[in-house]
């Protein structure tokens, strides 16, 4: 598959670069030229940091422009890698994909929330596969050992999740998945993504249909 990755997080870029067997191109700027023949675009909802209103403004403009270009170029699948930090709930709550986002007001958190909002509206409006993957940060194989994070993702878990999402035909739906690695202090539930292990390549096989008939 031809994957185009919009840069913005060096660590994620490093992981995705060695994403075999796919052809991965990482770019600062999505253009009509480099998006040609792309099977899936992977973009980030957040910046490494966002410390002032203008950074936030430019980030959201960039999300809007990138998604506009995806639509114009008829890209079939877009994965937005977002962050579980957009849920400012009590740590004991069983937050899943069905919960309303509850962002904080710092610019970084706000930028994640607004990026997701733009993605959702494009998803609502245009027929392409749109997958919002909220990941627990840091993405770090050593995070567990540091014993200080209730939410982190191992590199392999991240790559495996992207692989699974790439394999499935989401039939132009908007799907949200939460990802974090298992640990004793795991904060977020990841049942939905775990179930993808058992899915066929057509997600519509796994929805409820009245009387067994497909709608």
């Amino acid at each position, binding site marked *: 598959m031809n994957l185009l990755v919009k840069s913005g997080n060096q660590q994620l870029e490093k992981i995705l670069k060695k994403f075999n067997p796919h052809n991965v191109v990482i770019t600062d700027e999505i253009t009509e030229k480099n998006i040609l023949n792309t099977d899936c675009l992977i973009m980030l909802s957040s910046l490494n940091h966002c410390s*002032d*209103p*203008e950074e*936030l*403004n430019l980030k*959201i*403009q960039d999300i*809007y*422009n990138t*998604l*506009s270009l995806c639509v114009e170029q008829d890209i079939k699948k877009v994965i937005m890698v977002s962050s579980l930090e957009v849920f400012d709930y009590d740590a004991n709550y069983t937050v899943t994909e069905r919960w309303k986002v509850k*962002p*904080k*007001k710092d610019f970084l958190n*706000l930028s994640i*929330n*607004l990026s997701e*909002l*733009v993605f959702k*509206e*494009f998803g*609502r*409006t*245009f027929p392409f596969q749109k997958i919002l993957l909220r990941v627990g940060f840091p993405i770090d194989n050593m995070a567990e050992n540091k014993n200080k994070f209730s939410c982190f993702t191992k590199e392999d878990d991240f790559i495996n999740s992207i692989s699974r999402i790439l394999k499935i035909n989401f039939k132009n739906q908007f799907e949200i998945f939460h990802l974090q690695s298992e640990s004793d202090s795991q904060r977020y539930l990841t049942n939905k993504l775990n179930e993808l292990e058992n899915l066929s390549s057509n997600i519509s096989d796994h929805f409820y249909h009245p009387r067994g008939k497909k709608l």
Partner: protein
Amino acid sequence: MKVLILGSNGMLGPWLSEILKDDHEIIETDLEQIDTNTNFVKVDISNTNQVLEVAEGVDAIINLSVLRTDRKIAFDVNMKGNLNMMLAAEKFKISRVINTGPHFQVAGPTYENYDSEITPDIPPQPGVNLYAITKALGQEICRVYTENNPHIYLQTLLFYNFYNDSLTLGGERNVGKPPQEVGTDLTPFSIRWEDAAEAIKKALEISLDNLPTRLENYFIFADLPHGKFSNKKAKEQLGWQPKYNLKDLWSR
């Protein structure tokens, strides 16, 4: 009250300042100097420092600013402008914030093309129209800042088409155009300028204790028979009553 009006040089600004000037101390702001009897300060709403500077010491902020077409400036004004306004409300403990926008920043095509009796408290579905989505992003910023700052009360008044007394449709693109022909119907979200300004005045003067929550949205339009949208909440909560029903346009 000392009231800061952002984007005062638009089409609605003059109507609003006219009915506020006798009862309130108003500061009008916009990109370009305007002829006014009140205080005027040149402010670019997308400039954080300028907004913070002019907002110090005010009791309320009314945001009338809007930019519809240019992609970059629409984000600068409609989204970042709202962020700057809320940063000011947070920094200077300003309780009363009144935001304005088009109704389709909430009720976009996914509602409007399908539903009737649409109320202002539906989950926003602006779609991707530049004007709609940038205003919706600005509104989301206002919502998050209000939820995270217990002193802020946010009222959002949503409008669409404005008419003057000769039934000419408002907006700069219609300047110089003849009045609309009677009996030709109108968008079911239309209002006279005077009634629109009066609704904002009501929102400014209502006791904050009388607001059910710190986040209230209102649909502001004339009493029209279409049944597409509902202005009931604005009438009940703000005590606002439109004086003009634009009947010449929606009846034969």
